[in-house]
Each structure stands twice: as structure tokens, then as C-alpha cells.
């Protein structure tokens, strides 16, 4: 470069020897990469760290089978679960031989009674009819699968009926039909016996037994064919399909099984004023002799355990009034809602029941001397035969008056309730227990066509009632399981940053497996096995849904995660990126300058 004079007039003086050098647009040396390298390496190391940061804020979510859950719930919604039942009607002492006609008549009768849409847990039945004429020859309907269960002609004799106790008739019929209980398909039978006109009575007696058969005995039944057909269809539908209740389904208020499949029966003997008298009971013997058959019978439906306590100083909170005519203290049905005194009656003190079992309280209340005898008056003025009432899903109360209401002026004697009284109390308790499950407490069913006597079983429920319970509970459990699982999947999907533990995934998997098993057992006709697997499915689904870690309060959204980390990284990252960009721009500029210098040099 020439001296400063050159810079004054650069263009005119320096042409020819050296190309013009404009520091703004040219540079003579190649631009170095060091600055760019430093800034981009810092940026690059930040970028390298991003996957590690992502991994560290990742949360563990066990994969749930959403697709399976959705398909299970669709399946249960669309096709109501139906169980296969076999119905068999035997007509003894009838002269006609047209079994198929009778069969179609009975089928029409049944269809009329079940004309509503098929409810979940109802029967898809197959009907067969056998007619045995007085000469003990039989005609049967065609199409009935000949299995070991088919009725051998002549086994039922019309002389068996009408004499002796109904229990013995029941046992003898059981011998006839017992080959069927071994099969998985349950066979329900109705025997209609037309006796010869023995004593001229016109009365028709209908009895439903303790197993799976019923019988109607009368004379002159062949003439009243339509009547018989309707009574037979009524037994099939109202008794064997619906359990002696009028509605087809049991409401949720009468399914007192806890969500872990357990029920705890808590018996309390309440001495309302121990200064008057103190009563005790031998509960161990009650449990062994009277309650054990009941708990065993209900084993497929719920795992039942029993506990008891005796309490003292437990007054009731409602009032009673003295009635001169009845010579006793009266309380009314309007007092019943206030009877249980939750302040003073410390009933729910079970240590054995876990959080999700259902506890049913059965209270035997012994009134104090100032209210003895205490009787319940119904709205129609009658006195209650049982002195007891239930509250659905809570339990039942029985008021038991000591036989002798005279108070002893000395210190109270400790009495034990006598075994006869205990039996009466347990009978009332069984009636209440049946009510809590949606059945009637009395053993009789009345309809427009007549009354049916139902033989009571010492297990609290007859076998056909247990079948109805198994079917309805299977249905309810499966429905509950599918709604729980779909609520769970909706909840999990709505909180994308909630941790799902492995335990929850396992429980959902096993619950789906148990539900499928229950459905397949139901279609094969295994009532108790489907009831127990559906109970397991429901309990696993509830365990998964109520897992304590699923609390939305503890987990935050993506925006929150961003808001937590951005003050740390965003300012620095912004600076680094800007610096890298600036260096890159500068490098390009310098490179362009260098290239113009080179081209100038070349052209010059």
C-alpha cells in the first residue's frame, strides 16, 4: 500500500499496479475457522445433551392393552350374556300322546312371559316334553339330545304324590333327576301329575323343590290343559329363570358383594340397658351349625366370613309408645329410618375386613326394661311377625323381646338365649339375608294363576335360587369390570405424564383374562365357575382402578415440565444459538470478502 496519500485518492493513483482494496468488501487472508469451530462445538455439545435430558424427565408408563379393554366393553354392551338352560316337562297320567304339540304350547307360553328384550343373565333355553300315560308308556318330543339325563319311563308314579311330606317327595324326585346334576348343563324339570279322582277334591297343589325340580299335583288336569300349560311356563320363567321375583334383573342395590369379592357378616347382640338384664349367645355353635351351610352355598358368589360381638348400653334413637290394647310398646314403620343409633352403636369396628370388602351388619336388639315388650306395628295396623327390618346394602335389625319382661330388682342375671330362640332368630336372619340379595323372605309365591309353595332349604337358598344368583352376579360383575377398565383407560389416556406402575398393568391383564374365562364358562353353562371368575375379574379391575398412585394431583402436564426446565436452559441456549448463528454469518461474509479479493486479483 502506498502512503496515506494513496488513501486520499485511491482510485486514480493506484490503478494499474494493485487492485483496489476495500476493507469493507475484501480481505486478503483466508478467514479462519477457529471462531466458528468453537461456537458450533458448544452448540453441538448442548444438542448432544438433549437426549439425556429427555430420558431423565421421561416417566415410566406400563403399557396397558387399550385395544383389548375397548373390545371387551363393546362386546359386553352389544351382546347381553345368556346362559344355556335345559327345561324338561314331564306329564304323568295324561292320556294324550302328542308331545310336540304340548311342547310348542309351553314354548309359546314361555315366550309370552319373556317378551321383553333379553336381559343380561337370562336363559337361552331348550325345552323337551315327556308324557307318561297311566299304563306307564312314554312319548317324548323329538330332537332332544339323548344323554344320560333322559327320563326313564315309569320312574315317577302318580302314587308317590299327595301322600307324605313334601320333603320326601322332593327327595324321591331328586333320585329320578339326579343324573343330570353331574353334567355341566343344568336341567330344570317340572312334573305335572294327574291323579285319578281319588277323594273328589278339585284342588291343585304346586310345589317347587329345593333342587331343580317342581311338581303340580291335581286331578282332572288333562281337561284344564291351557291352565296347566300356563302354570308350567310360569314355573319355568318366574321361578327357574327369575328366582321368584317379578323383575327380571336385580338392581345394584341388592348385590351386596364388596369389590374384592368378600362379604363380612357382622353379628351384634345389643343389650340396650344391661342394668335390667344381660343376654349372651353361644355364637360359635350358631356359626358351626346354622351359618356354615349358608356361607358354603354362596362360595362361588362371594367369599363370606362371619364375626360377632356383644355390646352393652346401646339405646335406640327413635321413640316408642305404650299401647293399652296390645299391652306392649309400639314403634311404627315411620320410626324405622331413625332406629339405628349410629352415635352409640359402635357396629363397624371390624378389624378383619379390608377396605374394599362389604360388611353387612346384623343386629339383634334387646330392649330395655322400660320398653319391654317392643313390637313393630305395620301401616295396616297389624303387628309384625318378625319384628325386623333391613336397610339395603347395610344389613338388618331384629328386635327380640326377652320372654319375661319383669325386671329383677337385684343385680341383673346373665342369661343365654335358648337354642329354640336362637333358631327363630336365625330364621329371621335368613329371611333378611335373602332380602338383601333381592329375594323374598317368605317361601311362597302368589300369582294370578295360583300359589306355589317353595320348599325352604337350610342353606338359605335353594339350588335353583343359587343358579339365578350366579347368573345375575356374573352379569353384574362382568359389566362392572368392563366399565371400570374403560374408565381406567380413559383416565390414563387423559393424563399423559402420570406414572403407571407395572402392578397396574399386570392387574389389568389378569382381569381381562378372567373376564374372557367367565364369558366362555357362561356359554358352556358352568354357573358357579363363571360366577367366581367374573368375581375375580371385577376385583382385579377395581384393584387396578383404585391403585393409590393414580392421583391426578400428583402429576403435571407437559406445559408444567416445560415451565420448570426452561428458566435453566432457555437463556443459555438462546445465547449459544445466537452466537453460533452470528459466527456462521460472519464466516460467510468474510468468505465472500475473500472471494471478491481473489477475483479482483485475478482480473487485475
Amino acid at each position, binding site marked *: 500500500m502506498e502512503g496515506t496519500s494513496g488513501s486520499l485518492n485511491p482510485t486514480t493513483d493506484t490503478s494499474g499496479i494493485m487492485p483496489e482494496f476495500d476493507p469493507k468488501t475484501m480481505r486478503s487472508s483466508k478467514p479462519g475457522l477457529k471462531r466458528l469451530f468453537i461456537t458450533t462445538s458448544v452448540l453441538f455439545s448442548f444438542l448432544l445433551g438433549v437426549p439425556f435430558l429427555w430420558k431423565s424427565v421421561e416417566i415410566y408408563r406400563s403399557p396397558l392393552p387399550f385395544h383389548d379393554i375397548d373390545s371387551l366393553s363393546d362386546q359386553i354392551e352389544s351382546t347381553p350374556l345368556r346362559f344355556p338352560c335345559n327345561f324338561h316337562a314331564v306329564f304323568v297320567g295324561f292320556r294324550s300322546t302328542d308331545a310336540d304339540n304340548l311342547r310348542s304350547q309351553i314354548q309359546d307360553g314361555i315366550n309370552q312371559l319373556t317378551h321383553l328384550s333379553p336381559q343380561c343373565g337370562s336363559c337361552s333355553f331348550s325345552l323337551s316334553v315327556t308324557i307318561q300315560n297311566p299304563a306307564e308308556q312314554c312319548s317324548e318330543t323329538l330332537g332332544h339330545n339323548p344323554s344320560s339325563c333322559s327320563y326313564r319311563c315309569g320312574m315317577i308314579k302318580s302314587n308317590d304324590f299327595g301322600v307324605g311330606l313334601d*320333603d320326601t317327595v322332593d327327595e324321591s324326585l331328586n333320585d329320578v333327576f339326579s343324573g343330570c346334576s353331574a353334567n355341566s348343563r343344568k336341567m330344570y324339570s317340572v312334573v305335572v301329575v294327574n291323579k285319578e279322582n281319588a277323594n273328589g277334591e278339585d284342588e291343585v297343589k304346586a310345589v317347587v323343590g329345593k333342587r331343580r325340580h317342581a311338581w303340580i299335583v291335581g286331578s282332572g288336569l288333562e281337561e284344564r290343559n291351557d291352565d296347566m300349560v300356563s302354570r308350567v311356563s310360569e314355573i319355568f320363567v318366574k321361578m327357574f329363570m327369575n328366582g321368584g321375583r317379578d323383575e327380571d334383573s336385580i338392581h*345394584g*342395590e341388592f348385590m351386596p358383594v364388596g369389590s374384592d369379592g368378600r362379604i363380612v357378616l357382622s353379628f351384634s347382640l345389643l343389650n340396650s340397658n344391661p342394668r335390667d338384664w344381660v343376654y349372651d349367645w*353361644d355364637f360359635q*355353635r350358631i356359626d358351626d*351349625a*346354622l351359618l356354615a*351351610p349358608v356361607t358354603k352355598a354362596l362360595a362361588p358368589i362371594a367369599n363370606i366370613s362371619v364375626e360377632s360381638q356383644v355390646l352393652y348400653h346401646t339405646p335406640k334413637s*327413635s321413640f316408642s309408645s305404650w299401647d293399652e290394647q296390645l299391652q306392649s310398646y309400639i314403634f311404627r*314403620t*315411620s320410626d*324405622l*329410618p*331413625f332406629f*339405628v343409633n*349410629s*352415635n352409640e352403636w359402635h357396629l*363397624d369396628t371390624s378389624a378383619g*375386613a*379390608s*377396605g374394599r370388602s362389604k360388611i353387612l351388619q346384623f343386629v339383634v336388639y334387646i330392649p330395655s326394661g322400660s320398653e319391654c315388650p317392643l313390637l*313393630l306395628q*305395620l301401616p295396616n295396623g297389624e303387628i*309384625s*311377625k*318378625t319384628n*325386623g*327390618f*333391613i*336397610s*339395603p*346394602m347395610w344389613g*338388618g335389625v331384629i328386635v327380640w323381646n326377652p320372654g319375661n319382661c319383669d325386671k329383677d330388682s337385684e343385680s341383673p342375671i346373665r342369661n343365654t338365649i335358648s*337354642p329354640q330362640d*336362637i*333358631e*327363630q332368630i*336365625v*330364621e*329371621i336372619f*335368613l*329371611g333378611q339375608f335373602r*332380602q338383601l340379595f333381592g329375594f*323374598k*323372605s*317368605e*317361601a311362597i309365591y302368589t300369582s294370578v294363576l295360583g300359589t306355589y309353595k317353595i*320348599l325352604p332349604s*337350610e*342353606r*338359605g337358598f335353594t339350588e335353583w335360587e343359587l343358579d339365578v344368583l350366579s347368573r345375575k352376579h356374573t352379569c353384574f360383575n362382568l359389566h362392572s369390570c368392563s366399565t371400570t377398565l374403560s*374408565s381406567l383407560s380413559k*383416565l390414563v389416556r387423559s393424563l399423559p405424564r402420570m406414572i403407571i406402575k407395572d402392578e397396574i398393568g399386570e392387574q389389568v391383564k389378569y382381569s381381562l383374562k378372567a373376564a374372557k374365562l367367565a364369558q366362555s364358562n357362561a356359554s358352556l353353562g358352568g354357573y358357579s365357575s363363571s360366577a367366581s371368575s367374573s368375581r375375580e375379574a371385577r376385583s382385579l379391575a377395581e384393584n387396578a382402578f*383404585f*391403585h*393409590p398412585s393414580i*392421583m*391426578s*394431583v*400428583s402429576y403435571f402436564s407437559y406445559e408444567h415440565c416445560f415451565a420448570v426446565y426452561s428458566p435453566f436452559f432457555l437463556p443459555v441456549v438462546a445465547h449459544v444459538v445466537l452466537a453460533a448463528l452470528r459466527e456462521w454469518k460472519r464466516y460467510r461474509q468474510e468468505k465472500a470478502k475473500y472471494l471478491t479479493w481473489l477475483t479482483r486479483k485475478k482480473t487485475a
Partner: protein
Amino acid sequence: MLADDMACNARNEYPAQVFNNENHKLNLYGDNVEVDYRGYEVTVENFLRVLTGRHENAVPRSKRLLSDEGSHILLYMTGHGGDEFLKFQDAEELQSHDLADAVKQMKEKRRFKELMIMVDTCQAATLFNQLQSPGVLAIGSSLKGENSYSHHLDSDIGVSVVDRFTYYTLAFFERLNIYDNASLNSLFRSYDPKLLMSTAYYRTDLYQPHLVEVPVTNFFGSVMETIHTNSAYKAFSSKTSNSKINSEMPLNQLSEDDELQKANIPNDELKTEKQKCPYTQMRVDLQEKLEKLENVDTVVNLSIAVMFIVVMVSSSLL
């Protein structure tokens, strides 16, 4: 749930006592009051756990809401609050969307049939803005932008003892007796905005039954639905034999026990196989023999005496 910040306050002259009135007649911590969550256990998380039912397995039944699909629940909340929140323990807040979410989950799991929410805070009506589940009835002591005020000051203790909304609610119930069939409508109509100094607002769009037909005992008073038991189930009376408790076990029970015993036999066979080892066999035999002996003590005494003699003899021989 009671935070007990006043009852257990160091500056409270009447420790562990809370009165509803300045005349100190009624101690609200009476004999039969059951408080399940108190003090530091009163948190938003525990509250939502109680509502939704998501407890740890070890939580006892008394700390759970054991409701089912036929239950009527009364939820009463009071304290400091504001626009869409309620303050817990001066440290946390319960947001209206958390409450609405918990109620929605409760309804999905059928944990209630009817739910009544009463809120007594400032701007209380905003707390149930986001509710959408059916079967919920909600009443708040004030609208958005209004404050709720306390009723009177207890100069002895130095703080106000009861809020206006709560005071007038209690006054309504004090006027009723057990057989009055007062309806919820009469309860809600009894709130006078002039006396409350705020507007008690209630929302019934999610609640189907008409308020005139709903008795207050639906939610207040712990009243149960009852059904009379018509008859006993005569399972035992039909038998003419003796009372079942005193009789022998019936035959079918015995046969079932036989079946159980048959199932146990394979286990017994396993056990006998294990005992074929000679040493254990010897010990078992010895044990059986010892058990058969009538008087083990005399044998032991005799053997000790024999040992003593042997020792004496052998030591004297040496």
C-alpha cells in the same frame, strides 16, 4: 376433616374446645363427635383420596368413604376461598376443576346416588362452576365478587366463632323436630341476603328431583332407607327333629367331610415318604415313646439319681 388450627392453637384459652356461640354453651367437640382426619392430615391430596377412594391398602375403614351406588353424600366445606379455589391449611389450594374431576370419577364408579355440596367461603359459588356430573346439588354462601362474613365475635377468645351462612343453617335445623318433613326448598329459601350480607346461590341444573319434594333428611340426620321383613325363612321349623344345634351333624355333612379327607390323602403319602430316613425315624419313635410315658418326671428323676451313683462309683474307683 378438621384442621384443628384453632382448637389446638397455643393462644386458645380453651384448649381442645370449639364453641358455636359466644355463650359457650355447646362444645362442638362433644362426646360422640368422630373426626377421621385432623391436623396435618387435612390436605388436598387426602381430601381427593377420600372422595375418589384411592387409599393405600393399610388405611383403616374408618378413614374411607364407604359409599355405594345408593348413597346420599353431604359435603360441607368452609374456610377461606376465592375465585374457583378453596384454601387448605393456609398453604394449599383446592381448585374447582380438581373438585369437578373427583366428582366425575366418583360418578363413573357409582360412589353416590345424590351428592350435596355446601360451601361457606368468600365467592363460594365459583367453587362448583366446573361440575358436570348428574345427581349433584350445590349451594354456596356467596357469589363471585362477594365476601362471606362471620356472624359474631367472641370477645373472650378474640376470634369470630361462626360464619353467617353456617349460623343460619344451624338455626334452621334447630327449629325442626324428628317428624317434620321439611323440604330442601324451605332450607334454601330460609337464607335472607340481608342477614347473610351475601347472596346464597344454589345450582340445581344437575339435580333432577324438584327441591320441594326432597326432604332435608335425604342428606342431613343420617337416616336410612328401610324395608320391613315380612316373614322368617322357615328352614329349620319344617323339621320335626330336635333343635339343630343340639343334634348330631346331619349325614350329608359327614359325607362331605369324607370327601375332604380323601383330598388330603396325597399329602399324607408325601409325609410318610419323608419319614423313611432312619435317623428321623428313630427320633420320632423315641418321641412317641416319651409321649406315651405317663410320668416323665419320675423317669427323669430316676435317671439323674442313676447318673449320680455312676459318677460316684467311677470316681471312687479311679
